């Protein structure tokens, strides 16, 4: 099943469904209708056993997020702010999408594990640093001491090169 978003085309063979989550047109089959109140990931993909939330960020200046390699304290502070903003956006998109889907699912339909994939045009070194932070902030897994279920079972930040290596069955191309 092919789906396009933010300048990329994905193919998920065997997927039950794949769609742009935040559809803005009122006549669209999946009109979101709550964009004024809730943030949304770019794509939702329903696999037979799992659900994928996919967020895409194609940066023009990836180094704006590289706070670890900033050359001055001022630059480091600005970059840290950019990263905090990015994290904030990624976290809220995930949580709001999760809530939206919970609310739209008819009672009795079982949960599927949710996996969050963020396709970001950052270099490999930076992906590793930010990924750890995002997992802790979402949070992924049995994070709370009283939790009995997970919001998301996994979260991975990938650039297009890592996507191609990690997911040979899910082709990705720029359009």
């Amino acid at each position, binding site marked *: 099943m092919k789906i396009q978003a933010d300048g990329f085309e994905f193919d998920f063979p065997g997927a039950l469904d794949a769609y742009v989550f935040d559809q803005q047109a009122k006549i669209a089959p999946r009109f979101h209708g709550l964009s004024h109140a809730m943030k949304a990931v770019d794509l939702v993909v329903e696999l037979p056993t799992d659900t994928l939330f996919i967020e895409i960020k194609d940066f023009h200046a990836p180094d704006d997020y590289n706070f670890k*390699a900033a050359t001055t304290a001022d630059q480091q502070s600005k970059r840290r702010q950019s990263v905090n903003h990015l994290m904030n956006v990624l976290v809220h998109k995930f949580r709001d999408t999760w809530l939206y889907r919970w609310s739209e699912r008819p009672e009795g339909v079982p949960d599927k594990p949710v996996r969050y994939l963020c396709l970001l045009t950052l270099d490999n070194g930076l992906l*590793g640093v930010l990924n750890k932070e995002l997992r802790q902030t979402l949070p992924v897994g049995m994070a709370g001491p009283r939790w009995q279920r997970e919001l998301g079972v*996994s979260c*991975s930040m990938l650039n297009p090169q890592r996507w191609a290596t990690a997911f040979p*069955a899910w082709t990705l191309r720029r359009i």
Partner: protein
Amino acid sequence: MLDHIKLERFTAFEKLNLSFSPGLNIIIGENGCGKTHLLKLIYAACDVSTSQKSFAEKINRVFLPSGEQIGRLVKRRKNSSTGSVEVARKVQVDGQTKTIALRLSMSNHTKEPAKATISGAFKQWQEHPLTSVYIPVKDMMANAPGFRSLYSLRHIHFEEVYADIIDRAFLGTLKGPTDKDRKSLLDILQQSMEGKVISRNEEFFLKSPQGELEFTLLAEGIRKLGLLWILIQNGTLLDGSVLLWDEPEANLNPKLMRTVVEILIELQRLGVQVFITSHNYNLLKEFDLQVKTQDKVQYHSLFRDADRNLQVASFTRYDDLQPNAIDDTLGALADRDIRQQMGELGQ
């Protein structure tokens, strides 16, 4: 200014041609790709311009092959073979830029450096002395007391780069006031080290408001900054000199890395030709972020081709560097992490 190096059947190299940047040269590659060998060869060529040693003898002393048999530096083969090295540099002769070269060739049976063949413009090479300094991975400043006399009196098994770096550090201070550019570099280092370096009876100390701390009590990262401070202060690193530094990132925390990169870029701007090797993402990223368009930087990637022969590819931008052993390793780590997170999905 060094221009290029050509190798044939030397140590790990079958054949290699590498042109240098007149400014910063950053050499990356996996372990066993010959990064340090390249630095040592360049250093040996620089050093013989100011010493009485022959090119062959110096190479033998910095590589220290078993039994000091120089022929062991020829790339190993089943049959007899010969290996060669050519290092070339640009010099000014009567207002004209001229390229002169120094060559060494030998067979794998050559036992002594004196039996190796040296050719090229050795006389002109020495008429244009080139100050150089080689900083090895392992710090030697804390081991300086007594090392020099031991090295000169006894036959101890240390590559000569270790003795040389201590000699460079003990050069006396330049006469006259410190110029503005060098002073600003010294200030940057002093701020990071929170002091300056003094020596007494072949022993180095960091002098700070808290007192004098011997180098053996300092973190290795601070010792490295201390060494740079000494080399700048005593005028070893001046316009036209060559700095060769093997893995500057060793024992440096990322904050000190920023200082080291700042200094290296600034030295390049002052006319020092710099060669470093690195395995470190943070260090390379620092260079990538700190260099400006007017800086003369080249990234050289050493890699093995399909036939396992060493090759080199050079780039002016870090992002274009290919293959990039450091980024590949980080990518492979990311792949394993994704696989752990996603199981068999997407396979």
